[in-house]
């Protein structure tokens, strides 16, 4: 029996070992709440796609469970009627039109609504190409159709595997706005798998980083991009470096004085600098990009 407060998506020790002993996913556990945009990141072959396929009931786990709203996906397949998904960049019947594919999907879902299909085709910019056969679509067009297909059943949870693949810069921007809109305007939960870390950083609330089938870090995006360093705003960074005298590890990077110091150490740091005659105009926490954090974390895991 599912609890009414159960998370939208919960992976509990989810594992998949293929014949021959290849462990694609090993004990992945995470939880995603309603309305969250959750990023699922990892290098190629980390097990992201296998995890998503297990979530969608396409692959049977060899251990653990994937639960949606508290229901095990394997035992309660009906729960997937509340899920929309884009996997493999949109897989469609190539001999049918974009509109025809949405009709087949809608009927398979048991509720074909031509008006909704038309609205979604317009939303993803395919209104003019809706009656062309999919085999003539570009990668980006298939991707857009995939997004329309993922939203066709007005799902509560949207699972997107690399939704920006094949899109140009403008398309990526539109995709970002769409994902943000799904969460903020429509209250949907989004489980996003993408290698475009800059985009993930902008749209996700939390991320899990997976490597070789295991979750090696799960945190809020803000937490991952925050560093232990502060940037001191001063006209004389070299003098500041001298003034610190090795009390804190520091360096002058691109004309900025960057000091490894925690938030609680900032008053003492400012005092030391001002006391040494170094004018301080401001101190700000150093932010690192998600990409930098990702590379650091996966690099550490690789050397562990």
């Amino acid at each position: 029996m599912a609890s009414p407060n159960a998370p939208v998506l919960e992976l509990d020790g989810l594992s998949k070992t293929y014949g021959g002993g290849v462990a694609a996913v090993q004990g992945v556990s995470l939880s995603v709440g309603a309305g969250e945009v959750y990023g699922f990141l990892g290098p190629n072959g980390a097990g992201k796609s296998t995890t998503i396929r297990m979530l969608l009931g396409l692959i049977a786990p060899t251990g653990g469970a994937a639960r949606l709203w508290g229901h095990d996906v394997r035992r309660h397949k009906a729960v997937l009627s509340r899920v929309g998904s884009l996997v493999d960049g949109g897989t469609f019947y190539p001999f049918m039109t974009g509109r025809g594919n949405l009709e087949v999907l809608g009927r398979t879902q048991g509720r074909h609504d031509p008006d909704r299909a038309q609205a979604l085709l317009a939303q993803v910019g395919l209104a003019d190409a809706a009656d062309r056969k999919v085999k003539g679509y570009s990668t980006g067009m298939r991707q857009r159709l995939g997004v329309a297909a993922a939203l066709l059943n007005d799902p509560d949870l949207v699972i997107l595997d690399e939704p920006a693949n094949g899109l140009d810069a403008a398309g990526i921007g539109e995709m970002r706005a769409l994902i943000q809109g799904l969460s903020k305007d429509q209250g949907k939960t989004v489980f996003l798998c993408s290698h475009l870390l800059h985009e993930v950083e902008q749209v996700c609330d939390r991320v899990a980083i997976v490597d070789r089938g295991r979750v090696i870090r799960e945190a809020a995006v803000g937490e991952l991009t925050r560093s232990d360093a502060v940037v001191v705003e001063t006209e004389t960074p070299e003098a500041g470096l001298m003034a610190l005298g090795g009390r804190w590890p520091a360096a002058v990077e691109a004309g900025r004085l960057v000091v490894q110091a925690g938030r609680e150490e900032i008053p003492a740091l400012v005092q030391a600098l001002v006391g040494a005659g170094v004018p301080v105009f401001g101190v700000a926490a150093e932010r690192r990009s998600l990409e930098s954090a990702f590379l650091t974390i996966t690099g550490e895991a690789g050397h562990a």
Partner: protein
Amino acid sequence: MLELFYAERIKLLRHRATWFLVWVFPIGVSAVLTGLTIHQMIKGQAPANGPAETPAGWIADSIVPWRIPANAVGRYLLAAFTALAFGGEYGWNTWKLIGPHQSRGRLLLTKYAVVLGLIVTSLVLMAVLGTLGVWMNGLLTDKPAPAGIGFAALLAANGRAATATLLVVLLTVAYASAGATLTRSTLAGTVIAIVAVTAESVIGQLGPRFLSPTVYQMLPPYHLDNLGSWIGQGKASARRFPQAVVSLHWGWSLLSYAVWTGGLVTLTVTAFRKQDLN
């Protein structure tokens, strides 16, 4: 469930292969009969001098098209169509599109329903056009249908011919669906079904020379032949072996047929439900 049926039907009707694997039967029979009639009219062929055709003979001629889908080439075409319906989803990678939205058993059973529905529609159309074609041919070539052909007799003859043919078709569909699903490939499914159909034919004809009666009775060819014999002639088909004659009641053949066909369908559905759709 009806929506799922429509979804499957839309897919198959919009695929070009359906034209030359399924609709080819009514189109082909119509084309052959039309061509034959035109040829006879141009040639000015005189009416046959032999005895006038009897109603029973005319009806027997009119149901000949039912033999086409039951012969090897007809079965190859239907096997390829079935393999496309079941194996196509792997090739197009579309199980990922529709798989999460329905139970796997329902997806596959709907495929069976739609594949058989389209085949039956096509074959009934073929039979109707064939009968009309024979009738028109008679009218246009001065060999009109004999008097006394009753609609009930025509319907009964077609019913018997259809039943015998559909038994063969259903087994062909079972071979091809199992082959395509287990190998996840349209091409492999087609090849497997073609090999099975060909093997059936070889065993049916040459089996008594190299198989024991016991083994022979466990395989489908005799039972298809026997059921066809019971349906068409009301008696068992006899196969002579060096030390025995195999001649069974239709009930045994129907049971054996059901085990083979049902077994293949069960194998297909069970395997599909356990498959990882990567």
